[in-house]
């Protein structure tokens, strides 16, 4: 496995195809939890953590269980793929639970740092989105390592986006925003300018 390809995957998903600014995944927490930098950073780390684990686990379930079982019992490797979505969402929900219990027991400082964000992540569409994108793409379907790097890079890209946004919003509090645009309106317009900036990354990591 050459290292360059992995760096390409990472940069591609973290910057060029940033989950928030190019693929519109995880917009709800992006609008909701981006008021303060430390909260945004906590959310970003929690998402990266769960996204990497869920990406790997769903890959293992699809290729380690669904495909061989479907091939052996039903004669068609894709026969059980109808169960994919139900399984993905259950894996993510239970992963969040497991990660929460594990952190609480063994890494208590990290657990208190993540705080309320862990349970919120179950309905974060960026996590399910990462699992689905891995499953839809030939390159990631063929390699577990690339899938793991993709999921990790996606999480880092999300963390980057939400932290930048929170930094800007902390300053926006002191500016004179028209009444109708306060809240979601001005955040979306700021996101528009940030998305324009992220368009500038197109071309690297290819």
């Amino acid at each position, binding site marked *: 496995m050459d290292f360059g390809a992995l760096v390409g995957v990472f940069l591609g998903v973290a910057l060029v195809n940033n989950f928030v*600014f*190019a*693929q*519109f*995944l*995880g*917009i*709800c927490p992006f*609008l909701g939890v981006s008021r303060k930098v430390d909260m945004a950073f906590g959310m970003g780390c929690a998402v990266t953590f769960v996204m990497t684990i869920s990406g790997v686990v769903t890959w293992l379930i699809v290729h380690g269980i669904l495909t061989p079982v479907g091939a052996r019992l039903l004669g068609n490797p894709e026969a059980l793929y*109808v169960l*994919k*979505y*139900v399984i*993905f*969402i*259950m894996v993510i*929900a239970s992963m969040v639970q497991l990660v929460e219990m594990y952190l609480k027991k063994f890494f208590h400082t990290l657990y208190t740092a993540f705080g309320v964000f862990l349970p919120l992540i179950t*309905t*974060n*569409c960026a996590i*399910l*989105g990462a699992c*689905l*994108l891995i499953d*839809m793409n030939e390159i990631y379907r063929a390699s577990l390592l690339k899938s793991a790097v993709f999921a990790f890079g996606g999480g880092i890209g999300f963390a980057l986006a939400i932290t930048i946004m929170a930094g800007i919003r902390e300053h926006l509090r002191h500016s004179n925003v*028209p*009444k*109708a*645009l306060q809240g*979601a*309106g*001005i*955040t*979306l*317009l700021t*996101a*528009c*300018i940030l*998305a*324009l900036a*992220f*368009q500038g990354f197109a071309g690297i990591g290819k």
Partner: protein
Amino acid sequence: MAAPTTNLQQFKAGLLDNNPVLVQLLGMCPTLAVSNSVENALVMGAAVFFVLTMSNLITSLLRNRIKPHVRILIFTLTIATFVTIADLTLRAYVFEVSKKLGPFVPLIIVNCIIIARAEMVAIKSGVWRSLADAWGCAIGFTLALCILATIRELLGAGGITILRDAGWAWHVSPKAFEPHAWVIMIMPPGAFLTLGVVIGIVNHLRARGARGGA
């Protein structure tokens, strides 16, 4: 706004006063992602209509049997089942559009609009009330998506094309404008810009309406 008392009011609340996208700001991800063309918006709206109707129907029928502590799990599994059906149907009949929608059809599973309707209405109301609510919200969602998609496709592509792959195109295009189309409007920044401006306008109109009405 007074709480809706009849089924018709419940329907209207989801459609306008309590529009899930423009007023409640739910389901932002699909709104931004699939509003780049009217065709995508309509197909996505149809998928959400189907899933929301079935999930509200099932939840409402089971409302006396679901134990409170497992309700979210039941909602999610019901929704995931119907999303799988919708996804397979779309792939069978409108493959091109379903490919363009990418992960956003399966992502209906975690769409907050659908869980919110199950939790707020279907779990404690009768079947007809839940269906009226589902239809109001689903049509309200489609309406919001279509408004955004119309703006973005007109400015970004110079005209609106529906059903190009099926062979009969419907192209409304101000010819003078087409060569000067702003491609940025159908790209990601255009999505944020359009939604931000439309939400601003809606807020302004609501504030004025509240002042005028009182």
